[in-house]
């Protein structure tokens, strides 16, 4: 195990597929539905190789009918099956949001707990490759805002596998948001970091547990997804300037590991929240509010928020670069709160 951990590394997509395949082998009631998930193997390799082992009955290409197949996954889950439905780009939720937030997320509560919806909704998120306003959003806040869905966002292969096992086994609907730039695609090279050693046996990363990726004493940088890696890069720069940053990978948005955030903020007294999603009414505001409400006395500076501005995502390269926060933006914010 330890030798394996040090010598072998897999991409996030392969780790994700590994967990899905294991669950499908062990439970006939697990199946995968989505556009281009069978012969193509998922546009972002989210199902690469599954068709060969499980066939078209369990790895189902579906019509371009998100309302129908995501709603159908909900219905099959209410029958007790464990479907995984893939929304190819999270932006496409616009065509099927009713089935997600008025149905999938609410059946359990509206039925007074009589009904459960044990399904996973996988979806690709994120920019960095100039796909413009309709194919680059993260929308973390949108899903996390609406009650009734658990929401997870892996930043590396180890978490991708463990969160997928946990998501499929969970009796509630889990939205599993994977960042395209982290998957390890040949045509969209990942930064350093998401490819990790992954235990061969199955394991769960508990939904609702954040992870301290780097310990530090001066400032807490709280983030998720792609920006975990940008925050870690920023922390290296900050260290050179004598600022010791702690980096927290949220991994889950619902439930949110509030204690992990508060523990860190109480220790460092300073908070930077980093999000690829829009600035207003979202994650950065939520976590800043948490810190000011519950750790006010420990804060030595107002929290800083580093997020995407409230504009649709522009196409042109210099505009998208301006739009997306990079490690320099994160380091600047950390410098501001520690000044």
């Amino acid at each position, binding site marked *: 195990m330890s030798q394996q951990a040090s010598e072998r590394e897999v991409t996030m997509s392969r780790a994700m597929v590994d967990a899905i395949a294991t669950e499908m082998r062990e439970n006939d009631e697990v199946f995968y539905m989505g556009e281009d998930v069978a012969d193509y193997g998922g546009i972002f390799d989210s199902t690469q190789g599954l068709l060969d082992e499980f066939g*078209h009955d369990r790895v189902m*290409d579906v019509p371009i*009918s998100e309302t129908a197949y995501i709603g159908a996954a909900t219905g099959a889950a209410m029958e007790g099956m464990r479907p995984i439905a893939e929304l190819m780009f999270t932006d*496409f939720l616009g065509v099927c949001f009713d089935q997600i937030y008025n149905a999938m997320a609410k059946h359990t509560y509206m039925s007074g707990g009589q009904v459960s919806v044990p399904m996973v909704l996988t979806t690709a998120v994120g920019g960095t490759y100039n796909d413009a306003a*309709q194919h680059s959003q993260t929308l973390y806040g949108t899903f996390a805002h609406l009650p009734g869905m658990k929401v997870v966002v892996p930043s590396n292969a180890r978490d991708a596998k463990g969160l997928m096992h946990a998501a499929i086994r969970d009796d509630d609907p889990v939205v599993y948001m994977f960042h395209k730039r982290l998957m390890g695609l040949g045509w969209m090279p990942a930064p350093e970091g998401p490819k990790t050693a992954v235990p061969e046996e199955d394991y769960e990363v508990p939904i609702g547990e954040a992870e301290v990726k780097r310990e530090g004493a001066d400032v807490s940088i709280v983030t998720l997804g792609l920006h975990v890696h940008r925050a870690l890069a920023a922390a290296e720069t900050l260290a050179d300037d004598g600022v010791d940053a702690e980096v927290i990978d949220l991994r889950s948005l619902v439930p949110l590991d509030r204690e992990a955030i508060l523990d860190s903020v109480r220790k460092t007294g300073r908070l930077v929240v980093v999000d690829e999603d829009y600035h207003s009414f979202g994650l950065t505001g939520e976590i800043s509010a948490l810190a000011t409400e519950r750790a006010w006395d420990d804060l030595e500076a107002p929290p800083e928020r580093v997020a995407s501005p409230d504009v649709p995502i522009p*196409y042109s*390269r*210099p*505009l998208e670069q301006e739009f997306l926060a990079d490690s320099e933006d994160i380091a600047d914010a950390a410098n501001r709160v520690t000044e």
Partner: protein
Amino acid sequence: MLTADTMRDLYDDVVTARYYEERLQEEYLEGKQPAFDISAGPIPGELHLAAGHEAAGAGVCAHLRDDDTVTAPHRPHHVAIAKGVDLEKMTAEIFGRETGLCSGKGGHMHLYDPDVNFACSGIIAQGCPPAVGAGLAAKKRNTDAVAVSYLGEGAIDQGGFFESLNFAAVHDLPVVFVVEDNDWAISMPQERVTDVENAADRAGGFDLPGERVEFDDVCAVYEAAEDAVGRARSGNGPTLLSVQVHRRMGHFMGDAEAYRPDEDVERAQNLDCIPRLEDDLRQAGVSDDELMEIREAAEQRVDDAIEWAKDQPEPAPEATYEDVFSNPPQGRPMAAEQGGDE
């Protein structure tokens, strides 16, 4: 048989569109060798090229005026060219330049040219309801303008399409829905996801005319569209038109099409609307020299547009914060606290 003049115009459109896609393919792949990297090269983002779809663009748009509306999907260039979208500005937009149609904000899937009432979108079937809206506006204002919504055969399973057909039908709106049937929704062959072979059959359930053009034959599309657009313009309501086309360059650049049988790829290369139209033109007495002249002029236009576009400046980063609203609240909205003003 169409007149030679009509066919010359159609030919001009289809060869312009084909050459445009070939040139964009070259430009797009620059810097993406030996391994394909979506973030490299002069053209940003994804690129969905429409080589093999030209008959549907030219044959329908030949009947349209500037005040008629067209909504196109993510594979829009051939339709844009046929509708008369400014070629230079469109190209600059595809290259992400400041002087592009949309100042570099939209990109190849989000081209807007209000001068000729053209728009496109990256979400499947998203253009259907706005086309219905354009038809509704024409009806309310008592104009004879029409609207055309282009969509792929994969889009005929999308709810927005069904709802649009019904809305257009019940109000007798001047809308033509044009399905470009290339048999593939990315990797999904039509028979795996749709139990209807002929997309025009979808019309039956909504009590509107459905017509099918079986081969990507520019003249046949022209004739079918003449009826459909004519019906719309004369107040006789919507039509669903399905046109067989072929996908010659994959779903997007970078699509290795491993899922697609070799025979099908070969078929798409052989079933080409351009030689067919050339045969028709020759029969109408147009010489090969004249065809070559039309082609060369088209190629020159495309080369000039690409050269012009590549010379254009990229937008300044500050432009990111402009255009969110037509009536922005107190200048640049909300930029200061978001890093935009620092």
